[in-house]
């Protein structure tokens, strides 16, 4: 039985910028950078691929071990959680060569990320509250 994942919830916001994924956990105020093949693994896992499917999508399959290890890291940071979801449809992610994935964590903006900023926006006028 393969293990699939999903992003832990709407409090996890993430964007890909150039070759880097930046993830913000709005509940803890921590933010993360994924580098190397971390970006591809994140995108494929988010789309519902399991470790062996992610492994197989690399140009030269690195084996499931480093992929599972990285997924476990994402789980232990509570960025993704195990999901009962069905197998993913084909996704448009071509990871190319495997480069050791790296997860870097930053906590220097905690206080700022924990203050809800959404209240300052709104077409009806600002400041507005969520």
């Amino acid at each position, binding site marked *: 039985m393969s293990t699939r994942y999903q992003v832990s919830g*709407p409090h996890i*916001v*993430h*964007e890909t*910028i*150039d070759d*880097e994924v*930046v*993830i*913000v956990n709005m509940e803890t105020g921590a*933010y993360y*950078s994924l580098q190397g093949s971390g970006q591809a693994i994140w995108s494929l896992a988010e789309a519902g691929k399991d470790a062996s499917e992610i492994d197989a999508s690399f140009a030269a399959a690195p084996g499931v071990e480093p992929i599972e290890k990285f997924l476990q890291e994402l789980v232990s940071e509570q960025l993704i959680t195990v999901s009962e979801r069905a197998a993913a449809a084909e996704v448009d992610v071509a990871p190319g060569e495997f480069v050791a994935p790296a997860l*870097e964590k*930053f906590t*220097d*903006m905690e*206080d*700022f*990320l*924990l*203050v809800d*900023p*959404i*209240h*300052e*926006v*709104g*077409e*009806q*006028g*600002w*400041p*507005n*509250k*969520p």
Partner: protein
Amino acid sequence: MTPAISILLPVYNGQQYLRESLASLSAQTLPPAEIVVIDDGSTDQSAAIAADFPGVTLIQQANAGAAAARNAGLTAATGNLIACLDADDLADPKRLELQAAAFDRDPDLDGCFTHLAEFLSPELPDDERAQLECKAEAAPGACIGTLMIRRDSFLRVGLLDPELRVAYFLQWYGLAQDQGLRFEMLSETLVQRRLHLDNTGRREKGRLAKEYAKVLAAKIARRRSQK
């Protein structure tokens, strides 16, 4: 030296709560030298309310967003200390006095935040109240709405990026951190944040993620280049 405090209060279609916010500034134990209201092209009575309020300097601009409005206020302000308040929030009567005292205690201090409490706007009907989550306890208000800062310190970091709608202060603060500015968080709760329903705020979530990620990616890149 007696501090001259300029309040910056940007508003966009905020007629409903603006008077109350201004009144909380009139009730300060240490009065501000000026209250600069920046009307960001409101289509309601915000500008008229501000213009009628004693002691208010009104700046009007075509709608350009909160960051641009704050920049206009910052440029016009004459005080050596700048304090920000949002147009629907309430300042505790001792807010300015206690924040100004922090600068007296510490001549090298650049900026000072306060704790922030939330309250449900009293006129809300029950069904709207039920949709809002109000924090039971005050928390550190690390946001521009509690900030008091030396005008020179603010401008040394630079004006806010008007292209950012939600992340402009996060970006500015990241730059301030990199430049070594010193901030203090007062333990007193001196600003009350009003909660009311705003569904457009929820619709901005996609933009929030993009702006936050962009700002934080730039901060990460700066850190790497310094190593």
